[in-house]
């Protein structure tokens, strides 16, 4: 048994010659919502599949709920719920039938299944739709049912792989509410992968950023934001943004400058003091600016700083 609910040490996974995950260390405490951020192909889903026993690691080790994912897979499966990318449901069944069926796979008694189906239908607020074929559900309803299906056996750890990808803003907000309720009311540890930085910012107690199969940062959202500086100045320019970046980086008080399209992002220790000098320096250098904004750093800035790309 280990102290962390999820622990990985040097976790690796290769597919032929391709190293999808190159040695990931994780330590997720019980009751946390842990955000796992990264662009497509970064290794998020592969990591989740290893932690949820669907893929064997080719290197390193991992425990979930105290059990080794490779050698004690059944013990892990009894304690985890999994909602993978896109709603993995059976369109021919009704929501109630699917939940009941899932409960049977976990060896649950008839009375326990009935109690859990009732409780989950209230949690996901799906109403009368529970007795309709899943094929008739909207994307948001299907995703909420997907979440409920992962919870039927009252797992202690839930893996949610991009739970809101493809959903409209209202459905996304609804899923966020349910994840929070699940975490607060049922004390479930949530391991959440996402491409949406605002999702991790809104939900996660801690965040890890994976890029190219390697963790590039880990901490609370605030820690990560603080790590790149106090403020961010965003300047949109016409002409060569590299010239603007070179000029801005020479302004006292300004840190690293990233270029993304025709936009430069300037990290500053004191943005309100630096924004004027930056504007003057760019103007003196012949840079034509179309907009200039000062704001607090976001996880998006963290991601840009660490990976050189935006999600």
């Amino acid at each position: 048994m280990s102290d962390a609910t999820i622990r990985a040490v040097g976790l690796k996974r290769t597919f032929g010659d391709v190293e999808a995950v190159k040695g990931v260390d994780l330590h997720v405490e019980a009751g946390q919502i842990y955000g796992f951020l990264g662009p497509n192909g970064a290794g998020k889903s592969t990591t989740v599949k290893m932690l949820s026993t669907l893929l064997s690691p080719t290197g390193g080790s991992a425990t979930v709920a105290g059990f080794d994912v490779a050698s004690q897979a059944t013990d892990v499966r009894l304690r985890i719920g999994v909602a993978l990318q896109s709603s993995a449901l059976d369109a021919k069944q009704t929501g109630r039938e699917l939940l009941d069926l899932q409960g049977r796979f976990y060896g649950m008694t008839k009375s326990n299944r009935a109690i859990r189906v009732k409780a989950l239908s209230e949690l996901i607020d799906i109403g009368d739709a529970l007795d309709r074929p899943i094929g008739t559900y909207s994307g948001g309803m299907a995703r909420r049912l997907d979440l409920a299906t992962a919870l039927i056996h009252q797992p202690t750890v839930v893996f949610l792989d991009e739970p809101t990808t493809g959903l409209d803003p209202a459905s996304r907000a609804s899923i966020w509410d349910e994840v929070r309720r699940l975490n607060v009311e049922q004390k479930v540890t949530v391991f959440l992968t996402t491409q949406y930085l605002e999702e991790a910012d809104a939900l996660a107690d801690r965040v890890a950023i994976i890029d190219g199969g390697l963790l590039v940062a880990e901490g609370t959202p605030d820690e990560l934001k603080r790590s790149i500086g106090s403020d961010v100045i965003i300047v949109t320019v016409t002409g060569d943004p590299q010239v603007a970046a070179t000029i801005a980086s020479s302004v006292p008080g300004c840190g690293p400058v990233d270029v993304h399209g025709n936009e430069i992002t300037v990290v500053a220790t004191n943005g309100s003091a630096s924004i004027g000098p930056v504007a003057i320096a760019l103007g003196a250098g012949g840079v034509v600016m179309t907009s200039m904004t000062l704001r607090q750093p976001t996880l998006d800035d963290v991601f840009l700083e660490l990976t050189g790309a935006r999600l």
Partner: protein
Amino acid sequence: MNTDNLLARPAGLIGDLATVARRSLRSMVRDKEAVIPPLIIGAFFYVVNVGTLAKLSEGAANVSNYEAFQLPPAVIFAVTGLSRAGALVTDIQSGYFDRLLATPVRRIALLLGLMAADFTLAFVLTLPIIAVASAFGVRFTTGIAGMFAFALLCGLWGLAFTGFSYAIALKTANPAAVNSAFLIFFPFAFLTTTAVPKEAMSGWLQGVVSLNPVTYLLDGLRSVVTDGWTTQIFASMAAIAGVFALGFGMSLLALRGRVNQK
């Protein structure tokens, strides 16, 4: 962390198998477009063959009761290739199969449960085709027990053949490849005594027919209809067992490959 008061526990092989079969049977009932065509194919094949070949065969091939002679091939046409392999491909593609793999379900139950449902459907589909044959005057010399044995053997044959479809489904996860599994059945179905007895065939074909397990299956089924309880039924069972062993072995290997895509 809380590991007490777990609601979940392994359901065991029988429990898992029953759950998978329950889901499959429920889907079959709702998936009428997958069930009705085989029934129509079997009945159509029977009516057309009897209508066009009865007089010819009774004269030239010395078949005394062509209506009874045609019942087994009609049923075999209906039940062969009948499986939930297409639904399995959908599960794999949608991610539902992974969802099942993330539960403590016994992996082999994912295959056996589907096969149990297939057997049930094949058994049930045999009955209306027997009813059609009855309307043409066919009577089982072995009575109700023989009719049951006939349906049982047809169900088992349907089950045996599903192994090939599941092997393709699990290996490829491709619906077009699964549909093409029916092609495997063509040599089985036509290089045999479907239309006329072996004695009425040319020499080389008789040799090929003797190697085809469906020949022994049809012989056994026909004997139950017209000859009474004979040892030919054992040859039928052996033919089914051989095909089952091959198909099931292939599907098990494919299942292992899919589950261990690791």
